[in-house]
């Protein structure tokens, strides 16, 4: 029987010629990732087990991103523990204040992930790298601790859903609208356990930034991973970033998909996920009655340079509505610098926004933009669960950078085209 992209990558890393859905395999890993919240737990496990070596110091990545620059003593202590561990074992890819970025934006940017590779990360949005044609998935801290030592882990081979993309993107529509529409359609458990594999002639409409956003939120549909086939857009992105050899895997013609979802880009308009689930998708055009207090533009989902550009294009020469706070967080130091070079930082500041150095910050209700009771925020992040960005009576509306920016200007949920009139 044929295999899906994911199954082929897993078979290769397990040293098997074939795998099938449901099979338990042991697979070699090309990269093991942790952040400042999950790594300390993994390090404790690693040390409690008495391990004294890392399988490959170039294949473990630690990114201090959730609470840096450290927001309090506890987060400072956690980062210190990671810093000392990284130093002790000579971990090459350790990113701290000054070099860090939000992990899932940073790793692709730095060329740490290539097509066909197998990656685990102690962070649920590790699925982001599927955009590059890699198999990557989130695991627990124990898994990370074990994998740092062993260099392999076990997987249950997932079954798959195929999403066939057709049509053309409309103006202002981006990857965020695509994935929110898909999750709205299949639900937050629509892809439970499974791979989401994208295909179809519509993929050429999706930029690498779009794809990274789409794969990032595969977990929000319950998916184990969300993967794109390698094409010219992928190659162009990898060019100059990834110098090592890599292999592209494509699904067999007779690969088994439990379900095929048709996604026509022609039908997708700017979309907002209302509280308190990412599946709660509504057209941005219908949000006029929802008055907002804050916009957040950033996160591993939408903190890339394309996202900054989309926001800057809308905010240019305009100003936030009275009473709306604007928080812009470029996801990596390179993006931060780029924003200054391209004049986006000035645009944001002129519009009344603040611009922070990279951090997860408000995305998980950490700091840098926490909401009070009753407040509403349009955010480019990926989760709008109860209390995700602050008080349990606050509300998060998930949207693209363009919609967040437009909403900041009017003070209510707004489709960017409404500003043209």
């Amino acid at each position, binding site marked *: 029987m044929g295999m899906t992209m994911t199954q082929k990558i897993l078979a290769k890393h397990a040293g098997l010629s074939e795998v099938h859905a*449901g*099979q*338990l*395999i*042991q697979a070699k890993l090309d990269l093991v990732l942790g952040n400042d919240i999950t790594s300390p737990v993994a390090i404790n*496990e690693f040390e*409690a*087990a*008495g*391990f004294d070596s890392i399988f490959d110091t170039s294949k473990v990545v630690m990114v201090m991103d959730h609470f840096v620059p450290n927001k309090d003593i506890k987060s400072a202590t956690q980062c210190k523990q990671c810093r000392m561990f990284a130093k002790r074992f000579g971990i090459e890819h350790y990113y701290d204040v000054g070099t860090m970025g939000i992990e899932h934006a940073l790793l692709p940017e730095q060329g740490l992930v290539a097509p066909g590779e197998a990656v685990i990360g102690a962070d649920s949005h590790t699925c982001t790298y599927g955009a590059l044609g890699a198999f990557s998935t989130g*695991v*627990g801290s*124990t*898994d990370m*601790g*074990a994998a740092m*030592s*062993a260099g392999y882990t*076990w997987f*249950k081979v997932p079954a798959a859903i195929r999403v066939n993309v057709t049509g053309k993107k409309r103006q202002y529509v981006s990857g965020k609208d695509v994935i929110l529409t898909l999750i709205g359609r299949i639900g937050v458990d629509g892809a*439970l*356990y499974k791979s989401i594999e994208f295909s179809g002639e519509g993929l050429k409409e999706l930029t690498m930034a779009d794809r990274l956003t789409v794969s990032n939120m595969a977990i929000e549909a319950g998916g*184990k991973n969300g993967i794109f086939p390698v094409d010219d857009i992928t190659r162009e992105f990898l060019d100059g970033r990834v110098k090592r050899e890599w292999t592209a895997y494509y699904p067999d013609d007779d690969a088994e998909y439990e379900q095929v979802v048709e996604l026509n880009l022609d039908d997708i308009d700017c979309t907002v996920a209302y509280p308190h689930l990412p599946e709660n998708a509504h057209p941005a055009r219908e949000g006029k009655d929802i008055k907002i207090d804050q916009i957040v533009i950033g996160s591993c989902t939408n903190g890339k340079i394309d996202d900054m550009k989309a926001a800057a294009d809308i905010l240019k020469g305009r100003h936030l509505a009275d009473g709306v706070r604007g928080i812009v967080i470029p996801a990596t130091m390179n993006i931060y610098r780029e924003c200054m070079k391209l004049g986006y930082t000035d645009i944001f500041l002129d519009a009344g926004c603040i611009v922070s150095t990279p951090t997860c910050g408000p995305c998980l209700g950490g700091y840098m933009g926490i909401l009070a009771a009753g407040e509403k925020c349009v955010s480019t992040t990926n989760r709008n669960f109860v209390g995700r960005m602050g008080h349990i009576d606050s509300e998060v509306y998930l949207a693209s950078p363009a919609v967040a920016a437009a909403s900041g200007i009017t003070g209510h949920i707004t489709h960017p085209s409404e500003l043209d009139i």
Partner: protein
Amino acid sequence: MSTAHKYGDHVDTDVIIPARYLASQDEKELASHCMEDIDANFHAKAKPGDIIVAGLNFGCGSSREHAPVAIKASGISCVIAKSFARIFYRNAINIGLAILECPEAAEGINDGDNVSVNFDTGIITDNTTGKTYQAEPFPEFIRHMIEDGGLMASLKKAKK
């Protein structure tokens, strides 16, 4: 002698080990409250080697590792269910609790039946009714991981 303790669909981690006991890391303490909100007698009746049989989506809810730990510390040798929640599945294997997906067995086995499980072949035998069921057996490395007491323990052993 393995007695089956049977439950329905969607047994969640809050039922397996209520959040009010999570402050404890002590396995015996966790075991003493295992399943208490769904079956107050569980702790008294679960004997070493017994099995749990359940329906769909066993272990759904939070990612707490305490849940499989509490079950294992209760002496349960295996959980057979129609399906498991993803994180529970991973946690169970990582801490060395045997779990088998077998919808037919989960359907056919009755509460209180005497059941034996052959982990090498995946054959589940209901000695009370005489019926047998075939689950997909664990590959050897998972079997070893469970025998060794979980992921960390088996890795430690492999490193020696």
